[in-house]
């Protein structure tokens, strides 16, 4: 088991190393030395991931059990969805420290509406989602129109939303469903895709990836652009296919693919399309790369940044529902410090804090490192004190590497 998982991790990391070859046009690094540096950086992250897996599977054999890997998939999904929202914020060289509190607040709001007000769960979540988008749009507007640094506004948000969260749940534990019953809210983390459907889903995903890769390659060839060797494309598709099926097989050994993994897949696909194939996405990178040039180039900078915050609001609510459902109830600690995990996942995945740089694949990889670390420490019954210290150190090291890479 250990061996299989390690291979999977290696394969996943290898995909990240070669990331610049996405369909369409991807940024090309100037000169081989830079490529070497980036590769070195990704490679060191890969080693870290392998080390984490090896260490935890030795220290706590249950780490690689099907049951725990299924849990890890849920935890990864929650962290990664939030980090994908954070990616869009950081790419514009903004920052959002309030997302953890927001996760608690909007998960809590939906819980109160469902459990105490007896709203249908979907309606409760829909309202919560709309309010979250509204609140984040407002924060974005204050940041760009009033020129208050995002760091401060969202730090204020961190406190305000935490306070509101506690008010909304009046410092109690609010279950998301009547105990013993299920609703759309609780199913978020307790629903598993039936085993056969899981395989079908995997087939569809792999088929689409293959089709997209090959279509993009054809398109580039037709335009007379450089393409990677055909063998690379097929190897890549084959690798993705293996990973996806391996994941489904592992999940099916327990109860099937957990719903959050599907939510993550959809979110990652949407964020990838938005960042790589829409004007809005291009503008995010342009603003982060050089805000003044972006403005002179005719980008409505304010509107785009507010848009990024609005998207973050939606993602905060979505993460809130999953995280609260995973805890089974809204408590005062749900969402605590999640902003730091999201930021760490972005930075570990190569998102530059100065803006303009960052990929969906990188963020998924970074989230996997953070989620594995937290999951492993929980299994080993590491004390909360040490867990906090470890999280802090990982964040510090990741940012330090980001800064060093920028300097060199």
């Amino acid at each position, binding site marked *: 088991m250990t061996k299989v998982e390690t291979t999977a991790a290696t394969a996943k990391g290898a995909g990240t190393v070669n990331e610049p070859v996405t*369909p*369409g*046009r991807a*940024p*090309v*690094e*100037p*000169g081989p030395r830079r490529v070497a540096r980036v590769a070195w950086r990704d490679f060191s992250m890969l080693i870290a991931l392998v080390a984490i897996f090896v260490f935890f599977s030795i220290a706590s054999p249950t780490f690689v059990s099907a049951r725990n890997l299924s849990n890890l998939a849920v935890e990864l999904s929650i962290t990664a969805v939030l980090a994908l929202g954070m990616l869009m914020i950081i790419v514009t060289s903004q920052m959002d420290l309030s997302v953890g509190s927001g996760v608690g607040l909007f998960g809590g709001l939906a819980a109160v509406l469902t459990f105490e007000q007896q709203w249908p769960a979907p309606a409760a979540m829909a309202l919560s989602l709309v309010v979250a988008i509204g609140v984040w749009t407002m924060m974005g507007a204050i940041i760009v129109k009033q020129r208050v640094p995002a760091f401060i506004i969202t730090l204020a948000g961190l406190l305000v939303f935490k306070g509101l969260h506690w008010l909304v749940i009046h410092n109690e534990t609010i279950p998301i469903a009547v105990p013993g019953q299920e609703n759309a809210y609780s199913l978020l983390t307790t629903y598993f895709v039936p085993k056969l459907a899981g395989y079908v889903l995997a087939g569809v995903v792999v088929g689409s990836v293959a089709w997209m890769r090959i279509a993009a390659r054809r*398109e580039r060839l*037709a*335009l*007379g*652009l*450089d393409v990677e060797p055909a063998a690379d494309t097929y190897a890549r598709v084959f690798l993705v296919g293996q990973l996806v099926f391996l994941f489904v097989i592992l999940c099916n050994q327990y109860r099937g693919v957990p719903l959050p993994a599907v939510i993550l897949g959809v979110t990652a696909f949407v964020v990838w*399309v938005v960042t790589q*194939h*829409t*004007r809005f996405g*291009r503008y995010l*990178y*342009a603003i982060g*790369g*050089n805000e*003044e*040039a*972006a*403005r*002179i*180039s*005719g*980008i*409505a900078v304010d509107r785009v940044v507010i848009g990024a915050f609005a998207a973050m609001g939606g993602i905060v609510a979505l993460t809130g529902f999953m995280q609260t459902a995973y805890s089974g109830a809204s408590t005062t600690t749900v969402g605590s410090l999640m902003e730091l995990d999201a930021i760490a996942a972005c930075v570990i995945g190569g998102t530059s804090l100065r803006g*303009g*740089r960052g990929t969906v694949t990188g963020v998924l990889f970074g989230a996997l490192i953070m989620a594995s670390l937290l999951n492993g420490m929980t299994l080993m019954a590491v004390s909360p004190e040490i867990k906090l210290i470890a999280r802090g150190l990982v964040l510090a090291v990741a940012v330090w590497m980001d800064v060093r890479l920028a300097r060199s």
Partner: protein
Amino acid sequence: MSTPILQAEKITKRFGAVTALRDVTFDLRAGEIHALCGENGAGKSTLIKTLSGIHPAGSYDGRLLMEGKPVAFKSTKDAEAHGLAVIYQELAMVPEMSVAENIFLGQEPMKRGLVDWLTVVERAKQLLQRFKLDIDPEARVGELGVGQQQLVEIVKALSKRSRLLILDEPTAALSDTEVGILLDILRGLRADGVTCVYISHRLEEVLAISDRVTVLRDGQTIETLETAGLTQADIIRRMVGREITELFPRRATAPGEPMLTVKGLAVRRPGDGKQVLHDVTFDVRSGEVLGIGGLMGAGRTELLMHLFGAFGKRTAGSVTLRGTPLADPPHRAIERGLVLVSEDRKRYGLILDRDIGFNMSLSSLRAVVGPAGLIREDAEVKRNQAMFKSLRVKAPDLDTVVGGLSGGNQQKVVLGKALLTQPKVIFLDEPTRGIDVGAKVEVYELVNQLTAAGQAVVLVSSELPELMGMSDRIAMLHEGTVGGIFTRAEATAEKLMAAALGHTSDERVA
């Protein structure tokens, strides 16, 4: 005659392929006020930087002698130790600190290991009194007017007991009264035996204060003259004097209807609220190149940036684009057919760590977006490739990161981005700054193509030959307003320079 306090012998300074100074030779007599005159880009700033150690010894050819002995300044500190101080155009003061603190910044008198603040204030007070300045040494510098700040800066330089003072455009920000005070200070210093190098575009000041004038042109010393008996015209002729060659292939097209009309425009700078433009009136017709000239700080860039919606608050006047009022932010201005190529392409033009395709597309993505809101990569790449080829960008392909390109190729990327918006009016702010001659001619050819296609071009340039060579009409700005508009036939370098300096001559055509 006694030994000159400073001699520059055959100073040649190159930046890569560009020669900024070529065999510059001149000398400063002890206790004189020596003016340096020249157009923008003539090499004045480079010369100062060479004299003051910013360009350290070894980075240039030729030699410097102080009182007959060769010197090699490795840094500004080194130059200061030899008694040489420079006062730059941009102020180098800490606005949050007091006048006294600023004057003694970095050389605070100490007493038992602590800064002796009483002495600081006392000595600042003495210095200010000596120069008859009515400034409170304990006032915060930020509270003073720009002119007073400039005077404090000069006092600061003098507190270092400099023997040789270089003043770069010291009066650019001063009122007439303050200019008077400054000139009095300089005369006082001359009486004390301090030597001054005085750089100013205001020729009346040059004539009033200096003992001798050295004219620089194209990085070379043209002539050093005794001031007595000189006229402004004498200096202007030497500053300009050169032929306009075939470097400028302007093919005029018959101008059509007015595209952009500006009437009585006045603009304030946000922040300090300074009136940077006033009573600006001109129009540009389709198929026409309107050149805009003027000295540094005359408001050329501010004018373009304002028309493009990226700068300042309009306090008076009107701007219309083909008859409809124009007051839009850049993203709307582009939709309405305006586009700006900035003078500072690294700051306002390019996303440096992105590739050519990304940058070229940025202003015109709307045109390649498909029905689902997704960018149609094939359409985008085809369009970019066509532009890449027609501009002859020298790079392997569209995926090349722009940060690594030469200045000329970077400029082509910015131009490509602008052209892809299919503009009606294109603002070019110093489009040939820092690019080689070959690329320059290509830019000029592009201007010809644009006007032939009926587009209007507004060309800002600080090089008179470029303005005269490429414009159909030329508007010269002087301190934020139009000092004169000349047709191509009327324009002579002397007339343009006179208009830029604010001299209204009889030949002026409004």
